[in-house]
């Protein structure tokens, strides 16, 4: 177990190093310098700016410097708003994005598990069909269409929820978070619902469910002790992909709902080519994801006794 965690941590570091290197190389392979798009700067200002961002040094040296800073957690300074460091931007945006993302993950996983469960129990009956239609809509209506439509109808026309505002950081009032969380969780919700449904159907047909019934356990006990736990295992495995989805989804949702999270800064930095912010956010989010996947794997080992972490995978 310890050996496995050790191995995974090494892989995690390799991945992070790879991401930062690739990001660095990519960002520095863009022709011209980051200031070329601006109005013509005086020669001297340009020199000073280049010196400030170490752009006057040879590329390998820049790389070493960047990695050194990265190792201490310093992601550099925004090019477009030089008064702010990337770390400041991240620490301002993260609580907001975290609240939104966590809320969306909770909605997607809980509602998805419950909806999938109900659909499986009512298989081939109207309830099942309705839930599957909702799930299919979730897969086929992009959240950047759903978000604006919700804003228009639930926000503006029927005035059920406030829009285009966000309370205070992580502790924002609930009503501001409802619409964006739902819009953000729609697709992962659909994924979880579908997976949970098929997983439940699979488990319900297993011999050990019959064994449990043969013991005389009433349906509710069979369900809670034997069906649910085994059916949920596959859902845990897609928590990783779901996190990725919610993370990238938050780019558009934060932009649409004007939420001051990391995603909004990121989208802004893409449109005004603020390379140090793009780089910083990419590395930060990658680190987050890689760690999330690690946690999911550990969780999986805990929930399913058959999985021996670190054991060689069979073919």
């Amino acid at each position, binding site marked *: 177990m310890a050996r496995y965690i050790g191995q995974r941590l090494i892989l995690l570091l390799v991945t992070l190093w790879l991401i930062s290197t690739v990001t660095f190389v990519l960002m520095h392979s863009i022709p011209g310098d980051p200031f070329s798009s601006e109005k013509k700067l005086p020669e001297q200002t340009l020199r000073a700016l280049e010196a400030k961002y170490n752009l006057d040094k040879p590329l390998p040296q820049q790389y070493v410097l960047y990695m050194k800073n990265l190792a201490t957690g310093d992601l550099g300074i925004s090019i477009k708003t030089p008064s702010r460091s990337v770390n400041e931007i991240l620490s301002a945006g993260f609580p907001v994005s975290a609240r939104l993302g966590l809320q969306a993950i909770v909605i997607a996983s809980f509602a998805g598990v419950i909806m999938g469960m109900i659909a499986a129990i009512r298989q081939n009956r109207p309830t099942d069909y309705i839930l599957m239609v909702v799930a299919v809509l979730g897969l086929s209506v992009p959240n950047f269409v759903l978000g604006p439509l919700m804003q228009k109808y639930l926000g503006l026309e029927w005035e059920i929820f406030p829009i285009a505002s966000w309370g205070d950081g992580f502790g924002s009032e609930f009503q501001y978070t409802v619409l964006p969380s739902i819009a953000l969780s729609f697709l992962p919700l659909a994924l979880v619902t579908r997976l949970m449904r098929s997983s439940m159907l699979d488990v319900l047909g297993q011999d*050990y469910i019959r064994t449990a*019934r043969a*013991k*005389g356990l009433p349906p509710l006990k069979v369900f809670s*002790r034997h069906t649910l736990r*085994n059916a949920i295992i596959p859902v845990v495995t897609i928590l990783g992909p779901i996190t990725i989805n919610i993370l990238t989804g938050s780019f558009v949702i934060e932009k649409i709902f004007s939420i001051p999270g990391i995603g909004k800064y990121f989208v802004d930095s893409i449109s005004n080519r603020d390379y140090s912010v793009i780089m910083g956010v990419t590395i930060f989010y990658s680190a987050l994801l890689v760690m999330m996947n690690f946690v999911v794997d550990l969780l999986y080992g805990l929930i399913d006794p058959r999985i021996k972490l670190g054991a060689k995978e069979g073919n």
Partner: protein
Amino acid sequence: MTNQTILQIEGLHVSFQTYNGEVKAVRGVDLHLDKGETLAIVGESGSGKSVTAQSIVRLIPSPPGVIKSGTIRFGERDLTQVPDQEMYKIRGSEIGMIFQDPMTSLNPTMTVGRQITEGLQWHHDFGKGEALQKAVEMLRLVGIPNPERRIHQYPHQYSGGMRQRAMIAIALACNPKILIADEPTTALDVTIQAQILDLMKELQQKMETAIILITHDLGVVAEMAQRVAVMYGGKVVETGRVDDIFHRSRHPYTWGLMDSMPRLDQKREDDLIPIPGSPPDLLDPPRGCPFADRCPHAMYICHEEMPAWTEVSDSHQVSCWLEHPDAPAADRDEPAARVNIR
């Protein structure tokens, strides 16, 4: 029905509703089970033997399965009529069950101990410690070494034979009056099979349990049973004591079953004789004897009408037109294999 009888099935009809129509899996089965005895139900797959057994405790998948008619008397009660709540109390405590595949019949994410104790805790008001102690005792009883440690392990840490032992422990934990064993050894290695059968016999004597043994293996029948019911096409075609069936059988299907079984006294040049043909389509079951299509002795009447029961002796009944006084004498040794199949 003697006062020895603890289970009496009469006129049982079970159907499955499928997209193609109603599959009449069991079509009028009469059986009885005496205290402490072992009744074997034999037949090939699709003969309705498993469905009959599962219907006793209403474990057939429902939907699509439905008990259409018939009674299953268990003591004072008719098991086809008792409310669900009462059935939950009967299952596992008065009637235990073990199944064919021990690899899939145990919950992979629950310790074996927990799987034994949950039945105990549900049926008796056992505390956790008490139930655990009883579970250890059960594991020891079914011959699992080191039960105090084994009880905390998961099924995947058990071998196939040990899992079936654990299944038996689960089924017998509440000391049921009847044990229904649905092909308990089919999925096991031959050497393990013998061990499991010995264990079942030993426990049966200790606990005075009556066993309904579902199998297609006549070797297992000879080893275990006192009485045999031969099923074919959803009906019982012959029933009797083991020696009635093995030595004095009267039904051509039973003959076919015997001839397709390897024997120690067989001469080497004698091939095993398969029964040609395939079982009837129960979506549209034949009017007459279900075996008529494959029977080497079939007469016109066999295809048209189901034969009545003939009492061969007190213990031995057969349902075959050959028993009719007008029927020509049938030569058992007229081998089915003479028919050229290809």
